[in-house]
């Protein structure tokens, strides 16, 4: 299905990038644990591929990624765990049931409306996105605010590329995101427990950081519905709830966007939500976490281990205030 090139193949379509930038970017990406297998997903993703069956059988491409690690040497979390243990409250609050309940969620056709304070607003179909932006492989840690974490091999491209495409105006200070709201398929929506649609946001410079990813796949497979198909955000230095799923709208705005968890409990879920063992949740500690698949707790890392890449964003900010 996917035509993968084996060996260390460069990230494709980089002829237009000046060589010195390409080389330093490649070095940076290598340091970030990105594997250059060059699995270009553009054009190789079938138009409709709903997952079949309640549990995900490991796709063949998983074998090529097993044994790989993140840049700190942590092994990848099993595909079955990543796709079988999800927080997607639109379906259910039971993490292990989301895959079953999301079975009927077929994200096709899909479009993402990108607008607001931009020169070139545009609505992209998923196919257009996959065509226009090279999908890279990125292995990131994900840390949930609840105190568990995973190591996930995403497929996607930097959000920056999409934003540069639409050209934010100088007034744009933040990026706001919105998840699809489909009550017919998403059974949990009608419970009234949460004020959907799910909303999230980033400061513009956070959105432009190279780590910030728009992911369309994981383990070299298209995103399963329970993981936020067909396109989602991944911001690895923040708690998982910032990594909004199943995006339908991206807007450039001047004011700090409203986010769902901040609306529900502002004293517990801040806008920044940077992973920080020194800033506790009001009701539980953030000092340790359980890596899914492991038996022992491990210490939580400042900025989830990405401090070198993102610390500059918070220069001079008191992170106990801007939690």
């Amino acid at each position, binding site marked *: 299905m996917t035509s993968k090139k084996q060996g260390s193949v460069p990230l494709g379509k980089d002829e237009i990038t000046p060589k010195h930038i390409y080389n330093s970017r490649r070095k940076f990406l290598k340091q970030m644990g990105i594997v250059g297998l060059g699995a270009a997903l553009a054009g190789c993703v079938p138009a409709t591929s709903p997952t079949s069956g309640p549990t995900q059988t490991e796709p063949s491409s998983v074998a090529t990624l097993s044994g790989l690690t993140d840049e700190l040497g942590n092994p990848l979390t099993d595909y079955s*765990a990543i796709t*079988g*243990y999800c927080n997607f409250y639109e379906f259910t*609050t039971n*993490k*292990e049931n989301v895959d079953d309940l999301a079975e009927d969620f077929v994200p096709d056709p899909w479009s993402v409306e990108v607008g607001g304070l931009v020169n070139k607003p545009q609505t992209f179909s998923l196919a257009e996105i996959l065509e226009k932006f090279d999908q890279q492989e990125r292995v990131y840690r994900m840390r949930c*605010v*609840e105190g*568990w974490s995973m190591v996930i091999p995403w497929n996607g491209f930097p959000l920056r590329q999409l934003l540069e495409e639409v050209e934010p105006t100088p007034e744009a200070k933040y990026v706001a995101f919105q998840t699809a709201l489909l009550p017919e398929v998403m059974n949990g929506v009608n419970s009234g*427990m*949460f*004020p959907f649609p799910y909303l999230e946001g980033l400061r513009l410079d956070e959105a432009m950081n190279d780590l910030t990813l728009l992911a369309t796949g994981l383990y070299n497979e298209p995103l399963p519905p329970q993981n936020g198909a067909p396109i989602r955000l991944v911001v690895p230095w923040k708690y998982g709830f910032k990594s909004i799923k199943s995006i339908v709208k991206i807007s450039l705005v001047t004011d700090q966007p409203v986010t769902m968890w901040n609306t*529900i*409990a502002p004293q517990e879920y801040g806008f920044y939500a940077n992973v920080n063992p020194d800033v*506790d949740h009001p*009701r*539980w*500690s953030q*000092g*340790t976490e*359980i890596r*899914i*698949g492991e038996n*022992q*707790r491990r210490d939580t890392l400042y900025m989830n281990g990405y401090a070198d890449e993102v610390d500059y964003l918070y220069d001079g900010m008191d992170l106990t205030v801007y939690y």
Partner: protein
Amino acid sequence: MNQHIEDRKQESQRFQLKVLVNIAGALPLLLLIGSYVRGELGFNPVEAALQKTGQIAVIFLVLSLAVTPLRKLLHFPVMGFLRKPLGLYAAFYAVTHFLIFAWWDYGLDFQLIWGEIAARPFIIVGLVALLILLALSATSLRAVQRKMGKAWIKLHRLTYLAGILVITHFLLAVKGNLLTLQGDYALPLILGGVVLMLLALRLPFLKRIFQ
């Protein structure tokens, strides 16, 4: 003559209930262990075991509190003795729940555990409830009961406090906003409602209605 038959009937009912309550008490633990051994506790087995033991403990506690009103309602005085085994099983699962937290999850790292307990109201609340249940368990022997006399009755009224503390512990552990009830509050609220109702039934004027 009739009294003799009545006694025998009560004795056999009592025996049947005893068997029933002990099966009910042991079964959840056996099922939990079985699930764990078969790897059926899901992707976060510590979390699953912690949640399940907590739920089982609070259900046993609520059942124990429900015995007295139910006994009167159903005109089934024999079941009165069930308060003790149900309460003891509540304590047992509460201890297991705590050990899963302190031992399995936090590896008996006392510094880490103390750090968690000291700063987290919801853990402190749970711990106080656990201590109450332990005190009640320790004084549950009939010999102790006889020695303590009236003080025993007063001590064992703390079961209601334990019930309130446990529901509070449960509510404070849910991700969401307690004040606006945005979050997964269904189970703790239902149990909370039941506990409040059982408490209310002990109030003098309501007691009279039921007698």
